[in-house]
């Protein structure tokens, strides 16, 4: 049940033009740095990326945006990226904005074999345009559908050779749920250990969801808002 691949290049094999990718991370926290950089070195283009955010100009998905490799972003918030704004205003990039919780639940539904479900988020707003709505117990809900991806690319703290993953702190975010919804899920980890070393009661992503795993290199883990307490 060994899912280990020898390199990031091997990990991203099979990703092709116009495919849909899910990419884990919240802001720059918990993003699959190695895989994104490797994709930026390829000529793959026309990608549809499902990711909560779109990186910054020179890091994260911003690298793929700069290369014009992304055709469409499906996200909840895409600020903090000047190149993104430029492409959007010029009509070079398509953007679909989805409420963050609905995005997370649509991804979960994709992994969980649930084609559609109802949520209150967005009712009465432009998010509801064209969507089926319905009342349950006196409250209005929108019907939302599952999201799937050709590849999901996630980043974990620790992983084992079977593909079991453990995330650290808020670097989990969209990684755990996206790992469930890719036809092929690629996991890059800071530390790769033999199966049996991780506590089976503490696994966030069971290996069944992961097809390829490798230990990433030289994590930069860039910080967007470095806020500190000044001790007096």
């Amino acid at each position, binding site marked *: 049940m060994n899912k280990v691949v020898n390199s990031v290049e091997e990990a991203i094999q099979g990703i092709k033009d116009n495919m849909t990718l899910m990419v884990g991370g919240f802001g720059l926290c918990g993003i699959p740095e190695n895989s994104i950089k490797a994709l930026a070195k390829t000529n793959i283009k026309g990608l549809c990326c499902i990711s909560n955010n779109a990186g910054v100009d020179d890091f994260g998905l911003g690298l793929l945006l700069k290369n014009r490799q992304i055709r469409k972003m499906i996200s909840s918030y895409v600020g903090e990226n000047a190149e993104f704004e430029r492409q959007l205003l010029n009509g070079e990039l398509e953007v679909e904005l989805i409420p*963050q919780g609905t995005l997370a639940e649509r991804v979960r539904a994709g992994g969980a074999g649930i084609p559609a479900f109802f949520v209150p988020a967005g009712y009465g707003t432009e998010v509801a345009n064209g969507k089926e709505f319905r009342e349950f117990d006196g409250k209005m809900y929108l019907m939302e559908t599952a999201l799937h991806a050709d590849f999901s690319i996630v980043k974990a703290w620790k992983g084992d050779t079977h593909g079991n993953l453990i995330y650290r702190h808020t670097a989990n975010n969209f990684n755990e749920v996206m790992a469930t919804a890719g036809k092929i899920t690629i996991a890059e980890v800071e530390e790769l250990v033999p199966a049996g070393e991780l506590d089976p009661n503490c696994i966030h992503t069971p290996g069944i969801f992961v097809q390829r795993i490798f230990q990433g290199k030289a994590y930069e883990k860039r910080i967007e808002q470095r806020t500190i307490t000044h001790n007096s």
Partner: protein
Amino acid sequence: MALDKNQIAKRIAQEIKDGYYVNLGIGIPTLVANYIPSDINVILQSENGMLGIGPFPADDKVDADLINAGKQTITYVDGASFFDSSRSFAMIRGGHVDLTILGAFEVSEQGDIASWKVPGKLVKGMGGAMDLVSSAKNIIVAMQHTNKGQSKILKECTLPLTGVRCVKKIVTDIAVLEVTADGFKLLERAPGVSVEEIINSTEGKLIVEGEIPEMKI
């Protein structure tokens, strides 16, 4: 005199009760954490996947894997827990968070809120705001009462909505308002701000009953 951001945050902190789980939005709401009384137990939820936000870290304790929904580096307190985004919003949508505090561009008499999009300006996205406002049991909005002299406390919102009929209370730089079936009920005024000034700054229906006390900041 109109309150500054920290004073608005300080006034909102008075709404937080012992035992509450609270989600603080970006901006003024984040400042509320600084004014929670030390004699009550409150746990702060961050929708990117944690319960138990602590203060900003010391310079040498900054951890890139530990941020809040505003992407600021933070710490965690004893009893904290981390989880993924789908679990985080299951928590929010399921009504488990006692109080949500967030900012707004406009609020209407019905409790509708507009906070994410200004036509003509670049749209960055709604983030988790639509999920929060559609699900929270109790929502308090922190905002400026007016913008360049124009009221933001309206009969109907003019900007694209974030959610409908959800806001319960508003704390602005000049007043505390409750959203009722009959309109905005004026509860308190900022120190030195007259009821007339609040009336003049409010486009939506304002209910003024009896003596309106000054906020205690």
